[in-house]
């Protein structure tokens, strides 16, 4: 089903890309394009972070095999690689959307038809890149002549038509995210859960250096700790366990906020574009959306 929805987006996206360029759009269209750029960049960050989560999940499963002897055969790794490939496709889609939005902003800032034409040609070139992105399983025929068509569209002045073209794509992207969100959320939950279980196992085996726990007391005086493993007390081990639990909770909370915010941002953008398409005006705020929760979560993962 992921594939079906992803394919649906990939079908609609080129249509958007081909017809999204109509020169000299209003302030509403410019703001919508700016919002699209911000949202697309955060979507890229979000999916890229989830891609890292899948990579780290594989590393954790290898560690679990080393620590506890849990079997891990090619079938298990292939499962994770397959999920990773799905994430990669979503990263590619988000990047394509960000490129489109940037190009569209470029177009909205253009004054002379020559500039518009050049920007459209540039967007056409970027569309060609999309074809090469990993995970793009097919290239619609329309995509191949996108640059030429875009240049023609750039010389027209139908802003509403542009929004109408964007409308189904944004709706499809937003719907895809909402429908897949339970899977994204679950992947992050199991990643943290597995990491916690292994961290607790290492504490149990007295294989965790408590240096960072002691640092707040020693750092102001330029000192570092030196605690041989056999001298790590029960109390320090308990402190380490508490840290594992509390930091895990914090990560899950940060993720939940980021995921909900990303979902809301996509819905908001979709509504904005839809209104622009149906009324010619956007309910957009004058300032770009700030997806701080997504940024905070992705930074926390680094």
């Amino acid at each position, binding site marked *: 089903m*992921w594939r079906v929805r992803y394919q649906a987006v990939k079908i609609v996206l080129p249509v958007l890309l081909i017809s999204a360029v109509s020169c000299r759009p209003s302030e509403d269209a410019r703001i919508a394009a700016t919002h699209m750029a911000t949202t697309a960049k955060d979507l890229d960050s979000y999916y890229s972070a989830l891609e890292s989560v899948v990579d780290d999940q594989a590393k954790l499963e290898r560690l679990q095999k080393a620590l506890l002897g*849990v079997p891990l055969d090619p079938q298990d790794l292939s*499962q994770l690689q397959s999920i990773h490939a*799905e994430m990669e496709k979503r990263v590619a889609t988000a990047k394509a959307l960000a490129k489109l939005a940037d190009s569209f902003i470029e177009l909205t800032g253009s004054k002379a038809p020559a500039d518009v034409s050049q920007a459209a040609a540039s967007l056409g070139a970027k569309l060609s890149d999309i074809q090469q992105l990993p995970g793009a399983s097919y290239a619609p025929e329309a995509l191949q002549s996108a640059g030429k068509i875009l240049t023609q569209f750039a010389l027209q002045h139908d802003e509403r038509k542009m929004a109408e073209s964007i409308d189904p794509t944004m709706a499809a992207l937003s719907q895809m995210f909402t429908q897949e969100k*339970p899977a994204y959320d*679950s*992947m992050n939950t*199991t990643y943290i859960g597995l990491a916690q*279980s292994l961290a607790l196992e290492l504490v149990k085996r007295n294989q965790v250096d408590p240096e960072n726990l002691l640092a707040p007391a020693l750092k102001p005086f330029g000192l570092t700790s030196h605690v041989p493993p056999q001298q790590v007390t029960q109390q320090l081990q308990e402190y380490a366990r508490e840290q594992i639990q509390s930091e895990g909770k914090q990560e899950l909370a940060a993720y939940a906020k980021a995921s909900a915010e990303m979902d809301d941002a996509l819905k908001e953008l979709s509504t904005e574009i839809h209104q622009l398409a149906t009324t010619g005006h956007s309910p957009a705020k004058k300032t770009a959306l700030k997806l701080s929760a997504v940024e905070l979560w992705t930074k926390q993962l680094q």
Partner: protein
Amino acid sequence: MGSSLQALEKQYMFLTQNLSSVLDACTTQEEKDAVMKQYVTARRNYWNSIHKIFHDDDPAIASLVKQMGVEQKQIESYKNKLNDIAKVIDIITDAVTVGTALAAKVG
């Protein structure tokens, strides 16, 4: 969240968090192997389910999800009775078998 995915995630996470103590309670290699086998199956069921969108409205799946809930409670009730490891392994095996049936239904 889709209840099927939620049920499989819950089973996989519960076994993950208790794997070490269950393995410690095993007295023979056969018991350890049996636990590992069920754990790996639960993990595969979970990751297979991530690929798919669940048809939660399917009555057969709804029934399995309900059964998963019962099995999950059974496992949790035996969390502190690891001295009876043979029984614990049986219960884990039953629960994971239901999970496998659920994972096979979805998609």
